[in-house]
């Protein structure tokens, strides 16, 4: 039954890829279509208020600058709100202002689409902050990722000097994609019992006479965009394992599909832009192969149970239930864990810290690769970066100039790709090492032995991959962790965005080379295998040693 229900979810995803991918193509191809009538009036009001009269195409530099400045403005406004939230409306539970390093961490975390949470939603944020900062950034950071993907796709599939207009793309990503989808998913979630209220915490007198305070709030509207935007920051501290955020298996399936559909469908959008649908399926295929490998490992490892507990004479048939919810069981938990770290969402429906060692290797490994579907937009761009690297490696082997989609890949592009690829391990491994060297870092480790290494490694990997899930046992709300992970999230997000938009900017200006019989094809099964191999080899070379010290050592010593 476990495998069957997993397969059903995978099939549902497959059914979503084509319609959603085509829709996104129509939104961003900027050719007139039927939906214009519905959305254009709203968009014109937004352009009017913002004073955006000139909406012509931008060079990659102007595009990137606009993106970064917009993000900076949102960071500043959001930071101010968090620091004075006590004085603002919608604070029925009397929550205090947030302290500076935690506010810094929180605001960076949400703007970079990471959603690492060093606060607990029930006690750290007012309803107003949950809305005006958290929900708002869940939209804007997802839209930022999506427009990066669109600009990058335009760069490698079209000819000219511009990547499109940032503001137009950014507005459309909201009005035509995220907002309508979010409202629909919110209402479905409420119909399945997720609360959506401004009422304060309720005092219940339980059946056996205790007092239970039940926190609630506008949960559904946050949970929907949390997944659609591959954000992952929960309304409550325990995220989507909380029965209010994820009350039953159906909401679980909806949340899985919500966070998965945009990254998966963007491969189809890419195929449409490239006027070669096979090219899109190659990317989707490579992502899926990697995904299935990781999913199998997670499902297998969790089904086996924890040897340390099995040794006490407990029946292992149920699998490892520590940190998991009964309504999800092993199948829905393993699938959720694999999807949330593939799509770098970071929402969790079970506690990753309590996963079996090999089960915990899965989220860690996927965040290290950071391109198995990946977050909204950036995942596709990361995989295309590996695709460029793949043709480059093949070009070196056979001794010819590498080409991708009819353009030569030259020194400038490869340098930028190299920066993006190397930055990722650098900002994971160096801070991890620093944390182990200092008492400030070591003091927060709560699990002894090899698992402690995994805890620290997970925190920085999650920050660098802009995932945001955690081995939550880590006592991470200290200035050391707030500032270090804040910086890692910043670098993890913007270094690769800038470098890869730079690649797009130079690709868009290149001469197209006509396809000949000697052209190395990038739209077939052979290339899919090369792509998977490239991702694996780069990932293994970089991260295998540290994985051996953490989860693998824990697995080998656990009995």
């Amino acid at each position, binding site marked *: 039954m476990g495998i069957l229900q997993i397969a059903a979810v995978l099939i549902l995803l497959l059914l979503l890829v084509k319609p959603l991918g085509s829709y996104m193509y129509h939104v961003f191809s900027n050719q007139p279509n039927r939906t214009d009538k519905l959305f254009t009036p709203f968009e014109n009001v937004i352009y009017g208020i913002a004073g955006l009269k000139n909406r012509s195409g931008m060079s990659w530099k102007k595009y990137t600058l606009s993106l970064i400045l917009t993000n900076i403005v949102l960071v500043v*406004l959001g930071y101010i709100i968090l620091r004075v939230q006590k004085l603002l409306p919608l604070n029925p539970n009397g929550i205090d202002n947030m302290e500076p390093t935690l506010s810094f961490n929180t605001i960076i975390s949400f703007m970079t689409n990471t959603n690492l949470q060093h606060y607990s939603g029930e006690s750290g944020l007012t309803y107003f902050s949950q809305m005006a900062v958290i929900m708002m950034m869940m939209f804007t950071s997802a839209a930022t990722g999506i427009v990066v993907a669109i600009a990058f796709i335009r760069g490698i599939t079209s000819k000219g000097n511009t990547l499109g207009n940032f503001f137009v793309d950014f507005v459309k990503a909201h009005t035509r994609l995220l*907002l309508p989808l979010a409202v629909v998913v919110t209402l479905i979630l409420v119909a399945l019992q997720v609360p959506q209220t401004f009422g304060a915490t309720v005092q219940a007198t*339980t*059946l056996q006479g205790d007092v*239970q305070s039940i926190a609630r709030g506008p949960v559904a509207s946050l949970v929907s965009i949390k997944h659609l935007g591959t954000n992952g920051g929960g309304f409550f501290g325990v995220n989507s394992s909380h029965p209010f955020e994820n009350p*039953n298996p159906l909401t679980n399936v909806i949340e899985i599909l919500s966070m998965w559909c945009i990254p998966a469908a963007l491969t189809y959008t890419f195929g449409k832009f490239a006027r070669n649908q096979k090219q899109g399926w190659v990317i989707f295929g490579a992502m899926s192969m990697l995904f299935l490998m990781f999913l199998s490992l997670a499902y297998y490892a969790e089904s086996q149970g924890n040897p340390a507990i099995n040794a006490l004479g407990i029946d292992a048939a149920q699998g490892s239930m520590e940190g998991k*919810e009964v309504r999800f069981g092993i199948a829905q938990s393993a699938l959720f864990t694999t999807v949330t770290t593939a799509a770098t969402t970071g929402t969790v429906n079970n506690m990753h810290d309590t996963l079996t060692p090999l089960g915990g290797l899965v989220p860690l490994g996927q965040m290290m690769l950071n391109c198995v579907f990946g977050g909204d937009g950036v995942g596709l761009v990361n995989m295309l970066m590996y695709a460029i690297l793949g043709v480059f490696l093949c070009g070196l082997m056979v001794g010819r100039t590498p080409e991708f989609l009819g353009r030569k890949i030259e020194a400038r592009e490869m340098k930028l790709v190299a920066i993006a690829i190397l930055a990722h391990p650098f900002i994971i491994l160096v801070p991890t090492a620093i944390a182990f060297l200092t008492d400030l870092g070591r003091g927060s480790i709560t699990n002894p032995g090899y698992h402690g290494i995994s805890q620290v490694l997970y925190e920085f990997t999650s920050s660098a991959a802009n995932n945001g899930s955690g081995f939550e046992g880590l006592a991470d709300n200290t200035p050391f962790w707030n500032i270090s992970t804040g910086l890692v999230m910043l670098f993890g997000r913007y270094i690769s965005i800038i470098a890869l938009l730079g690649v797009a900017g130079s690709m868009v200006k290149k001469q197209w080379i006509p396809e000949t019989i000697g052209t190395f094809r990038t739209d077939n099964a052979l290339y899919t295998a090369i792509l998977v191999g490239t991702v694996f080899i780069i990932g293994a070379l970089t991260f295998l040693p540290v994985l051996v010290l953490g989860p693998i050592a824990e697995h080998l010593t656990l009995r």
Partner: protein
Amino acid sequence: MTNETAADVSGSSYLFSIVRIGILFIIMCGIIYPLVCTGLAQLLMPSYAEGSFIKNTEGGIIGSELIGQKFTDPHYFQGRVSSIEYAADASGSNNYGPSNPELVKRVQQSVADWQKSNPDVPVSELPADLITNSGSGLDPHITPDSAEVQIPRISKLTGIPAAELDKIVAQHTEGRSLGLFGEPRVNVLKLNLAVDEMMKK
């Protein structure tokens, strides 16, 4: 509202536009969106939107059917281990890694407690979900197996025949959603409400 006419916007008005966009999106995504959602949800499905609360005959709130409660009284079916004692204003769990000795210690304690209050059921029949901490610390469910193994104890303490308890456990067992997704489960609070009903009879 607009004052730019030049084809290429100048520096200051470009920056000003971005600030306006920032404020606009805070209002649009951060205020209008959740208000519209709340309005629609409260209008269409008020009870779910409020939190699916269960009330007693006098209208007092007993709890939410979605949120687990602490049951220490051995007359009641007991739920899963919760490191936060089912405090629903601060969710969380121990987050013990699989190799953490504290985890083994805690499980051993749970097993010992189990043996003391359920001498008739051997440890090998004890389902894993009863001795492990749920992810949220608020898990409202246990597996049907976990309910069944508690029947001998509850029957002995309450005097309700085991066959009757079997029946209410079966009544309160929810299957997989759509017959496919998730796992079969029993809501502990609803089950205990049924036990209370039987006690009254």
